[in-house]
């Protein structure tokens, strides 16, 4: 049977292309904006997500993993003695300065542990051996640092806080929200590099519970033994770290505004092109009414046109977003589009396009079928 909605779309190809382009633009905007936002947020908690710890002990009110401040490192002994704790180690996270061969100085976010392999940090190595880190003034630098520091290779030296450190290897995917490159350095060496300020101090205690242990009880016990610290599960700490950037930097608001604008652009384009198309086909809709069609018949046509534009526009927008991901990655930006987001954007696209078609429908619903008799 003839599908008037589909045939009208195919008949008005230029207008249909504009409608689809509007939807695709909006979908791309939403995917890219939310995807980049999720990528940035992922950076904000990627080390927490990857480190194999059940609990994190932090200084009181530490806002996020990057902005750590110190407390006595000996507190780790109290944690290790808590029943159910399998392992507890100090972790130092510090911003240090690195001198580049160009003479410039840059910031660097340093993670210091005594045994990196035990905690699964860094989780992906391009080159180098974690066991070698404790054997001298060495570091493993994330490959993403090349964008800030210029090219480097294992065996190169860089000056960190006035000390020459040899680059042992390169890690992958260790990014920070602040975009400062991440380096992995032996715990004691980090203390030395940070100077007197961090002497005998740590910034976190990582806790791994014994299999089957009651994590809530361990947490409560640690809280009781370290009353001036906070204790979080890994999930809570990751959420807190991400939440800090959303709430305190305006990035969340920026994302919401852009997503809103993307949706608005999509709705306006779809509504406007459908409306213009409807105005041009007004006599046809009048004819549908004259031959006995109801408003529902007409809304089926308009709604189906909107849905077809939504599906095709979504496919194009999704395709463009997927194609953009590698380009973004090449400049150090992560585009994360989870399945849930894809489903939500698809559903949103359908709904908004249907809503946009309603503008036209209101016009058509009010037309007098007697217009078919006008020349």
């Amino acid at each position, binding site marked *: *049977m*003839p599908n*008037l909605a589909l*045939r*009208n779309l*195919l*008949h*008005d190809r230029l207008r249909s292309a504009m409608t689809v382009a509007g939807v695709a633009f909006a979908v791309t905007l939403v995917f890219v904006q939310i995807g980049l936002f999720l990528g940035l947020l992922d950076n904000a908690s990627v080390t927490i997500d990857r480190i194999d710890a059940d609990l994190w002990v932090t200084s009181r009110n530490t806002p996020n993993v990057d902005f750590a401040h110190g407390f006595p490192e000996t507190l780790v002994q109290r944690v290790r003695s808590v029943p159910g704790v399998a392992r507890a180690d100090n972790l130092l996270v510090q911003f240090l300065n690195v001198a580049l061969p160009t003479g410039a100085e840059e910031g660097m976010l340093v993670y210091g542990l005594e045994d990196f392999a035990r905690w699964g940090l860094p989780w992906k190595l391009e080159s180098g051996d974690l066991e070698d880190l404790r054997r001298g003034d060495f570091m493993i630098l994330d490959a993403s640092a090349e964008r800030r520091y210029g090219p480097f290779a294992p065996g190169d030296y860089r000056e960190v806080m006035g000390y020459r450190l040899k680059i042992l290897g390169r890690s992958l995917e260790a990014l920070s929200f602040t975009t400062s490159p991440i380096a992995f350095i032996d715990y004691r060496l980090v203390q030395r590099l940070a100077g007197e300020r961090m002497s005998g101090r740590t910034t976190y205690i990582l806790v791994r519970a014994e299999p089957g242990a009651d994590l809530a009880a361990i947490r409560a016990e640690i809280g009781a033994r370290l009353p001036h610290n906070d204790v979080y599960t890994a999930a809570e700490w990751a959420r807190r770290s991400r939440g800090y950037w959303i709430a305190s930097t305006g990035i969340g608001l920026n994302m919401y505004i852009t997503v809103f604008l993307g949706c608005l652009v999509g709705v306006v384009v779809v509504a406007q092109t459908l409306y213009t198309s409807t105005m041009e086909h007004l*006599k*046809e809709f*009048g*004819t*549908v*009414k*004259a*031959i*006995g*069609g*109801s408003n529902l*018949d007409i809304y089926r046509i308009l709604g189906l046109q909107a849905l077809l534009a939504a599906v095709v526009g979504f496919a194009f927008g999704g395709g463009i977003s997927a194609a953009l991901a590698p380009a973004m990655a090449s400049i150090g930006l992560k585009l994360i589009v989870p399945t849930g987001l894809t489903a939500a954007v698809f559903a949103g696209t359908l709904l908004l396009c249907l809503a946009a078609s309603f503008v036209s429908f209101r016009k058509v619903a009010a037309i*007098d*079928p*007697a217009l*078919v*008799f006008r*020349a």
Partner: protein
Amino acid sequence: MPTALPLALAPPSPAVASSRPVLLAERVTKSFRDGREEVPVLSGVDLALAPGEIVALEGPSGSGKTTLLSILGCILTPTSGRVVVDGEEVDPRRPGRLPEIRKRSLGFVFQQYNLFPALSARENVEYALQVKGQRGGRARDAAARSLAAVGLTDRADFLPRDLSGGQKQRVAIARAIAAEPPVLLADEPTANLDTRAGAQVLDLFRDLVRARGSALVIVTHDANVRRIADRVIGIRDGRIVAPPPAENPT
């Protein structure tokens, strides 16, 4: 074909007299509100059509022809009076019922053809049947029969833009008759056609109406329509009047 044109105003045709009218209007009035003023457009119109009867409705612009056609076609409701279409009385208090009557009992042919430009001739007819509730093979067969009846089987897959004016009007007629409605309403169906195409369309109307027994009302300025009409009715200032004298048809 009648040789003397029947220009009867009041007396119904013999067919009407002998059978139940398929379309009936009694004392129909219609007025529109223009600001605070009621403007009467129709005043006490009576009309009855029997199955198989062709009535030409003639009148100058603004005389109320189209308003009467809209009321007979259940597109407008009368301000007062009574309209019965195929045995169902139109109830102005139930406007939701009008599309049902149009769907079931009426076929329209418009001056501008009003074909769907994105659909082929066959699809135009099929779509109308779809709106009227016929689908699938039944609708396909009915569309094919209709197009064959108007002599357009070989143009069934043409888009309207690829058809001549006469062919478009024949597609419009095929669309109007496809569901075999008892009443056909045509608004200036020959106005946009040249003399030859117009004559062909009128012959087609006559043959179809005779063959199918539908009633046909043709609103027209075209004197040639009288050639096929059983009755010619004049309308002026919203009232049925004696039809204007016959001009020499072209």
